[in-house]
């Protein structure tokens, strides 16, 4: 394994939707072990950037490098296999499956049993199933879901659903965890415990890419922050630097940062 300092590097990535440039010529790099914030007004292209690096969208131009491999067009499952896991801005859990099953599905990419394993249920398969369930339970506990593991995902509270998405993403053993507005809709207490959770995750060795609207959360948590506006990266710096950047103040923080 190559240990380049940057885990993810975007080189001039653009994404067009018809006439609209959702991303134009965005370059950035995320270092191993940091919490990297991505902010910008609504419609700035943050989610689009996530969709590009997780293979849901093909970039119109440019490419990115993850963990030393170049990707231009790659299938989502290939990128998940490579070590990028994500959550969704508009929660996308497997609603009619249990919390436990949701996380167990996250283990799919790191496990092997196929049809024959399922039918024979031999020793190796049973051991693997046991390990999957065990790991999933631990992850539920880790992200702080106290409801029974058999609760259907759709019956969890909003905050718990966001945590469940994090647990499911963590189950894929990612190197990069990309979170799309994980604090959206959370109250102050929930946000505070989310912040703690993200720090724990980072301290566990996982690099975090965080889209967030809550500027305070970003400022108190991130090592570096990039700002998108109308699809362009207008700043990239440590939080204090971004806060003082005139372009950022003009575009985004403006009077909003009280």
């Amino acid at each position: 394994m190559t240990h380049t300092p940057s885990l993810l590097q975007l080189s001039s990535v653009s994404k067009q939707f018809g006439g609209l440039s959702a991303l134009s010529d965005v370059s950035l790099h995320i270092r191993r072990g940091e919490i990297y914030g991505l902010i910008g007004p609504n419609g700035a292209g943050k989610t689009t950037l996530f969709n590009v690096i997780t293979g849901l969208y093909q970039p119109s131009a440019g490419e990115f490098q993850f963990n030393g491999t170049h990707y231009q067009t790659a299938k989502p499952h290939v990128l998940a296999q490579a070590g990028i896991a994500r959550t969704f801005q508009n929660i996308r859990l497997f609603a009619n499956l249990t919390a436990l099953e949701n996380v167990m599905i996250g283990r799919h990419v790191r496990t092997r049993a196929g049809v024959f394993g399922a039918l024979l249920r031999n020793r190796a398969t049973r051991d693997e199933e046991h390990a999957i369930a065990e790991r999933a339970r631990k992850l539920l506990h880790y992200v702080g879901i106290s409801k029974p593991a058999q609760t259907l995902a759709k019956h969890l509270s909003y905050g718990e659903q966001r945590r469940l998405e994090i647990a499911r993403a963590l189950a894929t053993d990612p190197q990069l965890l990309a979170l799309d507005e994980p604090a959206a809709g959370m109250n102050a207490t929930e946000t505070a415990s989310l912040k703690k959770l993200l720090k724990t995750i980072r301290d566990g060795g996982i690099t975090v890419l965080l889209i967030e609207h809550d500027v305070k959360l970003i400022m108190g948590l991130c090592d570096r922050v990039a700002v998108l506006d109308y699809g362009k990266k207008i700043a990239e710096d440590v939080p204090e630097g971004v806060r003082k950047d005139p372009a950022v103040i003009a575009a985004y923080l403006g009077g909003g940062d009280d």
Partner: protein
Amino acid sequence: MKHTTIFSKMKFKPNPRSLLIALTIALLLLPFITDALLGRGWVRIVDFAMLYIMLALGLNIVVGYAGLLDLGYIAFFAVGAYCYALTGSPHLALAFPVAFPDGVHLSFWIVLPLAALLAGGFGVLLGAPTLRLRGDYLAIVTLGFGEIIRIFLNNLNAPINLTNGPQGISRIDAVNVAGAPLSATQNILGISFPSVHLYYYLFLAFTALVIFVSQRLEKSRIGRAWMAIREDEIAASAMGINTRDLKLLAFAMGAMFGGASGALFAGFQGFVSPESFSLMESIMVLCMVVLGGMGNIAGVILGGILLAVLPEVLRHSVVPMQQALFGKIIVDPESLRMLLFGGALIVMMLYRPAGLLPSRVRRRELGSDEVAEKA
């Protein structure tokens, strides 16, 4: 596990082992009981019901687990049936008199796996171009596929007579078990087993196998991946599930069940023709899956039994009833069957959209709700 103890106290739960033994004995005696009480014709109906259950369980993999709406499923049944019809009958002598003067007479047990594999191949053939389609669009394409197969079977009697067209293929060899043809009454340990009874036991064994396979798949890494695709394909792919491969696998597995049932059907009936594989049959099997409870094995079995047996009950009651009341038949049982089907489905969608026996997850959830209320 506090929950399970509370739950098990709330409900009477007989020892699963003794329940299974009782069920097995009942199933083993069923053809004799049916024969004694209702007559031999009903044993035949039970045999057909089991074929339908196998089909419905196969379709359940595609629709219930992977969430892919397939309206052409009966085509795989057709592929399996014609597979054995061609390789276990004198028919091919017509097309190739030199090569096969007596037709082809392969053993059923050789054809069965081949039929399943061929049908599985057709499943992939159907799956591959439809990978991007979902819901209504997928339903329309699969419907077309089912019809194409049927139309081929109808028309492949010229220039070479491969399928014998609408007349179908007859004189298909019976299934042999240990050298004894199941088409004749057999004496085993002094008990005489008529043909329909023998096929009953054959189908029972296969149904058990299909249930076993379904159950194992459902509670496996593969089964979970299918359900993830059913619930949210984008999230599933972002979690590292190769949705293309797994959808093809679902199509192939479902089709293999269909193909195997088709070969059994051909051997049992001794005759196949394209009209057994109409769109109505596909819809019928889909109704069994939906009515019983998509994704739930017990529900699908219940749906299969209800929809296979009820029409026969109708046929046997409506005609004599009308004859007694009006002296003639006003509504023929076939139309009445469709009317009742339609009505039942509408009522189901309104009041029990998850089916008569909803899938295990919902049931479990209801269970824990009950616990929460009691606690």
